[in-house]
């Protein structure tokens, strides 16, 4: 497990390099949203979460539900680097018979907690898992990562209400607030602001951070553990495509993989 902030930053870079290589090899996939949540995913797997790559079904493990399932390359990279499966297998992403499906498939991939890909559903499943933890008096924590566009789904707000109603302080959500979705800027497609006030109004403890600063992610997560009665929403201001200059903030890279040539340029930037 990585210890220092520096080591975590290096890990995040390594995750990003793998995202680029996987997507370039697959020839398809979601570049922007995978890169924007890479720091949160890295911090969770290499510092925050209690998990065991040798025993993926360990009952007391912390659980991450990637509600924005299209960003799964980030999680596959973190799982492989943690030792869940051989790193070279990352290059089989999206191929026929690969256990690395285009969107998370919990029956296919060791370490993938929940099958997602249809936006708006992961938070509900996280609520169910957090409820089960309470019933069983277990101290595991449930984490989920939501897209900003994803929170336009009505079911997110059904789940938000339920999480606060059941006082799920063992539930911690990260909003990957990268300001972009497929059809353009979130603000233009369907404004989700005021974000902080919305989640607060739904009964959540809200923290706002720079989602690319490891120390801020760590600090916010630590604070979320102090909640006695409410779930936590950590709003992460992020940049879609973060780490690759020509992808940063470019809406077209949402669902497009880098070409071989672009991948080389990207990898050079990520050294």
């Amino acid at each position, binding site marked *: 497990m990585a210890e220092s902030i520096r080591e975590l930053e290096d890990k995040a870079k390594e995750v990003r390099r793998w995202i680029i290589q996987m997507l370039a090899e697959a020839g398809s996939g979601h570049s922007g949203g995978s890169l924007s949540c890479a720091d949160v995913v890295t911090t969770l797997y290499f510092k925050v979460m209690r998990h065991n790559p040798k025993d993926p079904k360990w*009952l007391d493990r912390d659980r991450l539900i990637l509600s924005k399932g299209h960003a799964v390359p980030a999680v596959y990279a973190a799982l492989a680097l943690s030792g869940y499966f051989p790193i070279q297998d990352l290059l089989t992403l999206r191929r026929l018979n690969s256990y690395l499906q285009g969107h998370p*498939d*919990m*029956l296919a991939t060791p370490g993938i*907690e*929940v*099958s*997602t*890909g*249809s936006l708006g*559903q*992961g*938070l*509900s*499943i*996280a*609520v*169910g*898992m*957090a*409820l*089960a*933890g309470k*019933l*069983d008096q277990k101290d595991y924590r449930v984490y989920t990562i939501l897209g900003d566009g994803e929170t336009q789904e*009505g*079911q997110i707000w*059904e*789940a938000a*209400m*339920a999480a606060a*109603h*059941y006082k799920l302080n063992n539930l911690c959500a990260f909003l990957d607030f990268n300001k972009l979705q497929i059809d353009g800027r979130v603000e233009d497609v369907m404004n989700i602001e005021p974000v902080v006030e919305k989640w607060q109004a739904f009964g959540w403890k809200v923290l706002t951070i720079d989602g690319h600063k490891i120390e801020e992610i760590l600090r916010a997560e630590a604070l979320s553990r102090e909640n006695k009665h409410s779930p936590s929403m950590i709003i992460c201001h992020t940049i879609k495509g973060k780490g690759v200059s020509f992808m940063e903030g470019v809406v077209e890279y949402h669902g497009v993989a880098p070409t071989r040539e672009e991948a080389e340029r990207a990898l050079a930037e990520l050294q």
Partner: protein
Amino acid sequence: MAEMVATRDVYGKTLIELGRENPDVVVLDADCSQSTRTAWFREKYPKRFFNLGVAEANMIGVAAGLALCGKIPFASTFAIFATARAFEQIRNCICWPKANVKIVATHAGISVGEDGASHQAVEDITIMRMFPNMTVIVPADGIETAKTIHWAASFHGPVYIRLGRAKFPLIFDEDYRFTPGVASTLFEGRDATIIACGLMVSESITAREMLIQEGIEVGIINMSTIKPIDRDAIIRASRATGAIITCEEHTIIGGLGSAVTEVLTEECPVVVKRVGMQDQFGVSGSPRDLLKHFKMSAEYIVQAVREVIGRKKRQ
């Protein structure tokens, strides 16, 4: 006169037994717990009952999360909302990952009655039957309901059980054994076979008695497991009688009638008539009046039987 029992009442009682037997059983509802009878479980086991409010999609997701952490969730509300509102959540969060969730929906079919079209789910069998990994069960009476609920709790995987609001006659006794995927033959036939599910089984029994007066002998098969369907039972009935009538209080598009004819056309085509909702919405009325109105009551089953036997003879 057989005792009249509503399958939802049996569900409520059976849940309490399950709650006593198995601490992992949890129950979810979406603000219909009085009507679905899950409130009876809540009274006994409040900590294991979750009311998610009027939010069915979320209820299905929460049930999936509970199942993935080892619980055995029974999620209930009216069939129209349990299936159609949460269609894609059931597909992606329950069926695809094989989550151990039991969706037990009440108020299915037009026998919902007076509430009318918005509340009469006549598409739920079609919807649930489409999903890989889903088992679909329509108990024929209260006795079979209890057996199927117990079975569902013991089985690991997604199950949909379709229950009703109205009281209708018991047809089985306590000795009845439910075997998933195996249809029960209530009567062997000579001239035709009725394959029915739900309250249409008791309606078919009435029709059979009327037909005996005319010298017509029909067999009756209770096809309570609609998926996986008992192909052998269908093939046997088709070979034995050469004429099949399906009966369901559900649309004939995609429901029991479709499931049976899919097998027949592939294996041994015979003359068929599908009794059920004929591509239409329901209306308000008493359950009894509605069965007549939509030509699904015993006298119309009799007509359907006469029609297929006539067609068989002309072949």
